[in-house]
């Protein structure tokens, strides 16, 4: 038994390591046939790793429902691959595979942590992918999406205000809304509206007056999130605005001024709010406050440290000792049971996604899609930095989910939606180039 767990542990690491390597290697390949070959290889690795993970769990848990869950996941992945390929032959296949790989790892770890949550997660992912089938089409065929800047902004703020008034509190933040028995986290969707809003408004122009107006709108969003005590959300919104502003105006002054303001704002928040100070305190010395404030982060560090570079093996550690391990702290669970090298590969795959996403921005000739994809890239990248940085004690923990891996319906749906919008922009960009615009995607890729 132990032997099998050990072998599968190393096999999963080797598989993910190979996936990571090839996902970067593929940037260099221009030969279409070679690319096709590599994509098939990546697909095989995803399914193989997904199988080994579930196999390792099954021999230990012996729950027949697990086989059922595994099979539905395989079918789901297969349908996603076939359907999206059939409907959108031009979509970024690497981005889609990265998503599936992260989802597969998420499914394995969630199944290990909480079977029920895994089932729920699979169902939500299935719904999200089918619902989002139409999204790239909409993005491709609706050029008027850039006209509703104010509508995006106002509806986002209204939604956040509703949550502030009628929302329920969970883990200290009032950012949940209960509708007909389903609890959703609206800020996960507002953040997409928010990026749409900023992109649409900058599309109209970047004069100082407009910059001020957009800043006020963004500030309102951030302020409401701060009032909801959703620190991570507030930070993500803020940083996204600053970088979109910078990209839209190409004025470094805005970037520096924004970051300086961010520091000032953080300092004010630290002085005013107890819950901010507690987070900082727990970050500075988690072991010193292990009884209360530092408990979660200490347990997270214990998990990561005890797991070591190669991990304890699936189901062999004690990740459930970390509070909220299935969502905000799932990275520690991965690190404990699958090991430090595995965890680093996960970070690399996220980096790969980030590069793919921001590459889409670079390819865009028009302001709106360019800013849209840039905003999403920054939002995605920064969320990963906050999430992982928080659980490894690099920065104070802000309670942010790890996209596509953490359990949580709102988070995964909004991430899938976001990537499908990016796919739409990607494909639209390709078609426009074919219409006679300059440069090819391949040369762009080479830059990175």
């Amino acid at each position, binding site marked *: 038994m132990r032997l099998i767990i050990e072998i599968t542990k190393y096999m999963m690491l080797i598989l993910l390591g190979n996936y990571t390597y090839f996902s970067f290697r593929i940037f260099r390949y221009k030969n279409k046939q070679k690319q096709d070959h590599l994509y098939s290889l990546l697909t095989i690795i995803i399914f193989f790793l997904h199988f080994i993970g579930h196999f390792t769990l099954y021999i230990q848990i012996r729950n027949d429902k697990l086989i059922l869950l595994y099979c539905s996941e395989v079918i789901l992945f297969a349908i996603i691959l076939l359907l999206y390929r059939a409907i959108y032959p031009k979509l970024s296949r690497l981005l889609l595979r990265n998503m599936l790989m992260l989802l597969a790892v998420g499914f394995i770890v969630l199944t290990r942590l909480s079977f029920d949550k895994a089932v729920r997660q699979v169902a939500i992912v299935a719904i999200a992918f089918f619902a989002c089938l139409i999204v790239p089409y909409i993005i491709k065929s609706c050029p008027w999406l850039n006209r509703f800047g104010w509508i995006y902004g106002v509806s986002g703020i209204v939604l956040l205000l509703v949550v502030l008034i009628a929302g329920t509190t969970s883990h200290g933040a009032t950012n949940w809304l209960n509708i007909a028995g389903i609890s959703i986290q609206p800020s996960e969707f507002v953040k997409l509206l928010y990026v749409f809003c900023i992109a649409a408004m900058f599309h109209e122009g970047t004069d100082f007056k407009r910059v001020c107006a957009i800043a006020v709108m963004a500030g309102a969003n951030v302020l409401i999130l701060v009032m909801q005590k959703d620190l991570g959300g507030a930070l993500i919104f803020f940083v996204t605005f600053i970088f979109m502003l910078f990209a839209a105006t190409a004025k470094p002054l805005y970037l520096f001024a924004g970051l300086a303001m961010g520091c000032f704002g953080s300092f004010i928040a630290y002085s005013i709010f107890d819950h901010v100070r507690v987070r900082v305190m727990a970050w500075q010395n988690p072991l010193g406050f292990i009884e209360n404030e530092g408990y979660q982060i200490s347990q997270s*560090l214990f*998990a990561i440290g005890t797991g070591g570079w190669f991990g304890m093996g699936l189901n062999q550690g004690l990740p459930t000792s970390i509070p909220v391990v299935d969502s905000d702290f799932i990275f520690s669970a991965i690190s404990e049971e699958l090991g430090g090298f595995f965890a680093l590969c996960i970070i690399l795959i996220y980096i790969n996604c980030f590069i793919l996403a921001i590459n889409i921005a670079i390819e865009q000739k028009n302001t709106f899609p360019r800013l849209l994809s840039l905003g999403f890239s920054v939002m995605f990248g920064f969320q990963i930095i906050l999430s992982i940085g928080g659980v490894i004690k690099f920065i104070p923990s802000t309670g942010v989910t790890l996209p596509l891996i953490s359990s949580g319906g709102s988070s995964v749906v909004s991430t899938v939606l976001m990537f499908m919008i990016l796919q739409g922009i990607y494909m639209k960009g390709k078609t426009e180039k074919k219409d006679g615009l300059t440069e090819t995607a391949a040369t762009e890729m080479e830059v990175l």
Partner: protein
Amino acid sequence: MNRKEEPKFDKKSIYSVVYIFLGLFVLIMGYYTYFMIFRSNDTINSTYNKRQEVLAQRVVRGEILSADGQILAKTVVDEDGSELREYPYNELFAHVVGRSSKGLSGLEETENIRLLTSNINPLGKFYNDLSSIKSPGNNIVTTMDTELQQVAFEALGDYRGSVVVMEPSTGKILAMVSKPSYDPNEIDALWTELVEDENSESPFLNRATQGLYPPGSTFKILTSLEYIRENPSYLDYEYDCDGSVDYDNMVIHCNHNKAHGKVDLKLSFAKSCNTSFATIGKSLDLDRFHTLCEDFQFNSNLPIGMANSASSFSLQKSESSVKEAMQTAIGQGKTLITPLLNGMIAATIANDGVMMKPYVVDHIESAEGNLIKKYSSQVNSTPMTVEEADNLTKMMREVVTNGTAKDLKDLKVKAAGKTGSADQNEGKAHAWFVGFAPYDNPEIAVSIIVESAGTGGDYAVPIAKEIFDAYFK
């Protein structure tokens, strides 16, 4: 399709964004790697880390060794794979080494995760993992000297009490005895009896670090230091002792009501003249005295990684009466001290006024003997100057040559120290001795308390003698 003329777009700004974020990602990965390599070992060795059972399934608990290479604790694995923790020295090291059954204590507790971590060569570990063989855990090498421990343990005899022997220049603990002790090998059988503790002997208490006693006359060391600080002309101090002193319906006696006659500070100290020191106590600035004692670690926990009690000193100008000040000056009153702290004070004097952090773990090595982590000596604080330490050394030497510790006069080495007899409400006094040797170039410091035995000179000094004899053979 947007028909508006798009402004020419500069890609540079997006590239900057890319580099900023890639930089952040690299930082995250770098910090993660740094944590794994440098921080994780220290972090996971916490009593709050609940993963010991998980680790115990794949690692055979490591050994605890003495500085002279003797095994203090080891795990014996039977042919059928069952494990038994053995303590070859039985009750000798029970409090320092601790136990691993019926709850963890001592080093077994504080070094738990390290003992359950295996740092043997990765290939061997990999092979063991694959073949489901448990890897041997890391070994803890302590600073303890088995011979000194044995001598101290036996010298204390059947008395309750404690002996601490340490190296003043480093803070290394060489011996640490607490009696009554118990045999950790037999803990399962003894448990009920020990927990019930019918004679209130508290066998689980490590008296060296957790026992709180009135310091008795050993406290005159700090009283003298305070007096010297407040009175630069302390050499002119003179007192005529007639065996007792009255103050407001309170009488303080010298031992056996003996009249010491005309004494200066040095002689008051050597003869442990209570009336002289009580009179000194009347004159002291209590707030300064309070600060001095807190500089010597009173009212705070000791800088040692094992369970310990904070010694207490409560005298304060606004709250304390003259009576209390007089009692406190001779080590009675409300002051309480642990034997370890009293030993640390003696060691500080021996180490030119520099207090070292006491420590028990010298280094950690893998089962193959490779060094995993070395603990070096650390300065805790410098609560007095070299001159002050020198002064006190001379006074403590006088105790041996011309005072209450005369039994140490004929030793091979020239010792220095201070005796104490801490009176209790009922029963015999606790016998104290703190000191070090050789007085001009100290190598070891001792702190001895013998509960309810009698005077320090009669009951604690002989133990010190045996320890010095054993060390300076």
